[in-house]
C-alpha cells in the first residue's frame, strides 16, 4: 500500500516538475541549446595549436650566409615570417600587435658564424606566454633544419661526434591534437552546467514563493520531492549526453577506446551527482540569487578551472591538488579522458565510479534532510 502511494505521488510530482520545466523557454534554451553551442565552440573554436605565428625577421646582416641561416623559417608550417629591415620597425609591429616575435640577425652574424659562434636573437612578446613558448619551439626547430641538412651531407663519413637523438611516441593522442582532450572534457562541463544552472534554482524558487511550505501539508515525502525534481533534468542531461557523444564520434572523430556502455554509465552517474549537488545548494540557500552564485562558485567554475580540464593538475600547488580531489568533477574528468583515449582501465573505473556513487548517495541524503517538513 505504501509502496503504491510512493509511486503514485512520485509520478504526479514528476509530471508537475516536467511541465514546469518545459513551460519556461529559458530552461530549454540553457538545457539543450547551450550544450550545442558549447560543443561547436569547443570543437571548432578553442585550440592551443599555434598556426601561422607572425615572426618578424630583421636582417641586419644581409649576406647570403645570414639568409641561409634563417631560410628554414619559410618552410615551417607553423610560422609566417615577415621581413623587416630595422629593429625600430619590428618593435613598432610588436607594440601594434601585428607581430608575435622578432628574430634578429645581428650585423656581425656571418663574421661570427665563420668563427663558429653565430648568434641569433629571438625576442618574444611574453603577454601570451603559451603562444610565445610555442613560437620559440617552432623557431628553434625551423632553424635546425638547414644545419641538420648540412650535417647529413657531411655525416656519411663518421664525424666522430656522439649525440643523442630522440625517438618520440605520444600514446593515446598520436598527433597531439588538443580537440581530443577538450571534447571529452566538454562532456564534464555540459553535465555540470545542467546541475549548476538548472536544478540549483528549483527548490530555492519554491522557498521564495512559499510553495514549498504548501507542499508540507500534503502527504508528499522529502525523498519523493528530491527524486521528482531530479528525473526531468536527468532526461535533459541524457539528451545532451547523446549529443556530446555523437559529436565526439562523428563530428570531431575523437577515438572512443573504452566501451560505450561503461562511458554512458559513468556519465549518467556523474550527471546524477551534478544534479544532486545543484539541488542540495538550492535546498540550503532558499534564495535564487544566492543559489545560482553558490552553484557557480562551488560547482561550475571549479569544474572548468580546477578539474584538470585545460589546466593539468600535475602543475598546480599541493593545496590546489587537495582541493581538487574533493571535487566530483576531478574524478569524472580523469575517468572520461581515460575511457575515451586509453580504454577500459578497470582499476580506474571501479575507483572513480565508487567515489561518484558515494557522492550521489550522500548528496541525496543531505538534500532530503534539508527538505524535512519543518518551519523555522
Amino acid at each position: 500500500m505504501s509502496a503504491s502511494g510512493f509511486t503514485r505521488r512520485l509520478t504526479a510530482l514528476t509530471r508537475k516538475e516536467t511541465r514546469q520545466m518545459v513551460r519556461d523557454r529559458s530552461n530549454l534554451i540553457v538545457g539543450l541549446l547551450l550544450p550545442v553551442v558549447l560543443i561547436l565552440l569547443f570543437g571548432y573554436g578553442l585550440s592551443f595549436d599555434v598556426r601561422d605565428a607572425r615572426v618578424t625577421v630583421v636582417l641586419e646582416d644581409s649576406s647570403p650566409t645570414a639568409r641561409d641561416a634563417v631560410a628554414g623559417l619559410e618552410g615551417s608550417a607553423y610560422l609566417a615570417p615577415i621581413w623587416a629591415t630595422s629593429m625600430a620597425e619590428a618593435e613598432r609591429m610588436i607594440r601594434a600587435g601585428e607581430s608575435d616575435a622578432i628574430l634578429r640577425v645581428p650585423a656581425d652574424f656571418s663574421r661570427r658564424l665563420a668563427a663558429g659562434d653565430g648568434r641569433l636573437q629571438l625576442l618574444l612578446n611574453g603577454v601570451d606566454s603559451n603562444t610565445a613558448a610555442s613560437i620559440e619551439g617552432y623557431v628553434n626547430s625551423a632553424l635546425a633544419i638547414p644545419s641538420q641538412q648540412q650535417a647529413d651531407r657531411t655525416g656519411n663519413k663518421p664525424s666522430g661526434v656522439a649525440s643523442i637523438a630522440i625517438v618520440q611516441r605520444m600514446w593515446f593522442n598520436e598527433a597531439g591534437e588538443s580537440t581530443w582532450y577538450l571534447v571529452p572534457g566538454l562532456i564534464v562541463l555540459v553535465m555540470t552546467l545542467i546541475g549548476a544552472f538548472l536544478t540549483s534554482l528549483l527548490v530555492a524558487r519554491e522557498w521564495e514563493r512559499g510553495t514549498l511550505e504548501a507542499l508540507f501539508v500534503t502527504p508528499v515525502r522529502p525523498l519523493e520531492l528530491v527524486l521528482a525534481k531530479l528525473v526531468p533534468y536527468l532526461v535533459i542531461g541524457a539528451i545532451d549526453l547523446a549529443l556530446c557523444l555523437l559529436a565526439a564520434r562523428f563530428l570531431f572523430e575523437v577515438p572512443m577506446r573504452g566501451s560505450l556502455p561503461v562511458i554512458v554509465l559513468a556519465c549518467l552517474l556523474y550527471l546524477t551527482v551534478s544534479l544532486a549537488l545543484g539541488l542540495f545548494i538550492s535546498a540550503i540557500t532558499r534564495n535564487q540569487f544566492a543559489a545560482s552564485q553558490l552553484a557557480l562558485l562551488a560547482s561550475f567554475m571549479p569544474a572548468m578551472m580546477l578539474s584538470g580540464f585545460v589546466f593539468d593538475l600535475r602543475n598546480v600547488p599541493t593545496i590546489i591538488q587537495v582541493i581538487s580531489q574533493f571535487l566530483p568533477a576531478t574524478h569524472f574528468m580523469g575517468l572520461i579522458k581515460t575511457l575515451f583515449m586509453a580504454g577500459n582501465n578497470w582499476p580506474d573505473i571501479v575507483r572513480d565510479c565508487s567515489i561518484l556513487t558515494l557522492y550521489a548517495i550522500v548528496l541525496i541524503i543531505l538534500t532530503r534532510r534539508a527538505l524535512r517538513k519543518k518551519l523555522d
Partner: protein
Amino acid sequence: MPDIARTIAGILALFRKEMLALVKDPANRALLFMPALLQALLFGYGATYDLTHVPYAVLDQSRGAASGEFLARLDGTGVFERVATLTASSEIAGVIDGGDALLVISIPPDFEARLATGRQAPLQVILDGRNSSTAGAASAYVASIVASHNRSLGNASPVTVVRRSWFNPNLESRWNMMPGLIASLSMLQTLMLAALSVAREREQGTFDQLLVTPLTPLQILIGKALPSILVGLLQSTIIFLIILFWFEIPMNGSVWLLYLGLVGFTTASVGIGLSISAVSLTMQQAMLYTFMLVMPLMLLSGLLTPVRNMPFILQIATYVNPLRFGIDLVRRVYLEGAGLGDVAFDFVPLLAVAAVTLPLAAWLFRNRLA
C-alpha cells in the same frame, strides 16, 4: 537649470534605493566580493600551463655511465621526478595507463656503445597524450635537455638562438592569465546584477510602479546601471590588488588608463545585462539568459586560448564580444605598459556595445518584448 537639478536628484534617489537593496541583505553583501576574492586566489594558483612537476619512469637497458649522466641531467632540473625504474618494456603500459608517469624514457642496450664510438644513439620517449598540451610541453623540455647534453658531448651547433622575452621574462602563464581575470571574473556578476535588478522588480510587480513615477526611462536606466557598474569596478579592484600584492606581478602601465578601460568594459557589460533583463519576465529567466550569453563570451574572449588560433569566422564574431577587448586592454596596459594610443582601438567595440545596448534597454523598459 532646476530641470537638470531635478533630473539628477531623481537619478540619485533611485541610485540610493538600488544600493540599499543591494547591501541590506548580509548574504548578498558577502556575494558581492567573496566570489571575486576566492576565485582570484584559487585560479591564480590553479590556472597554469607551466610545467612544474613531471613524474617519469626509466627503462634503462644499457645501464652504463653515459645513460646515468643523461638521467642525472634530467633529475637536476627539479621538474622531472623519477617515480619508477622499470626492468622490462612490458611494464611501460602499466605506468602510463595508470597515470603514474607522464612519460617513460627508454634507453636501448647499445646506447653506451654507440656514443662511445661517436655515433648517434636513439633515446625513446613515450608520452601520455591524454593532455596533449602538457605532453607537448614535456616533450619540448626533454628535447632542450637532450640538446644541451649534446652540446656537452662536443656536438655544438654553429648557430645559437639567444631568447629574450618582453613583458613576461620567464614566460609564466600566470602573468597572462591573471590580468585577464580582472575583466572576466567581474563580468559574470556585473551582468547578472544588472539583469536581476530589473527582473526582480518585474517579478514582484514593482517595475510598473517605477514606470509611473515622474522618472524618465533615461533616469531609470542610469539609476539602475550605476550600482552594477560600481560593483563591477569594486570586484575588478579586488582582483587587481590580489594580482599586484599577493602574486606580485609587476604593473607596467598607468592605473588611470586601466580604470578608464575597466569603466568602458563594465559599462558595456551592464548594458548587455540590462538588455537581458528587459526581455526576461522572471529572475530565473534573467539568470539563465545571462549564463547562456556568458559562456560563449568567455570562450571566445582569448582568456583560455588565443583568439588568433580560432577559425576566421569565429574571429570575426569576437568583435561584438566586449570581454575580448576588455581582456586585451587590461593585459596590454598591465603587462606591456601600453599607452592610450596603443589601446585606443580596444575602446571602439566597448563603446559601440554600450552605445547600442544601453539605449536598447531604456527602450525595452517601456516596450517590453517578453
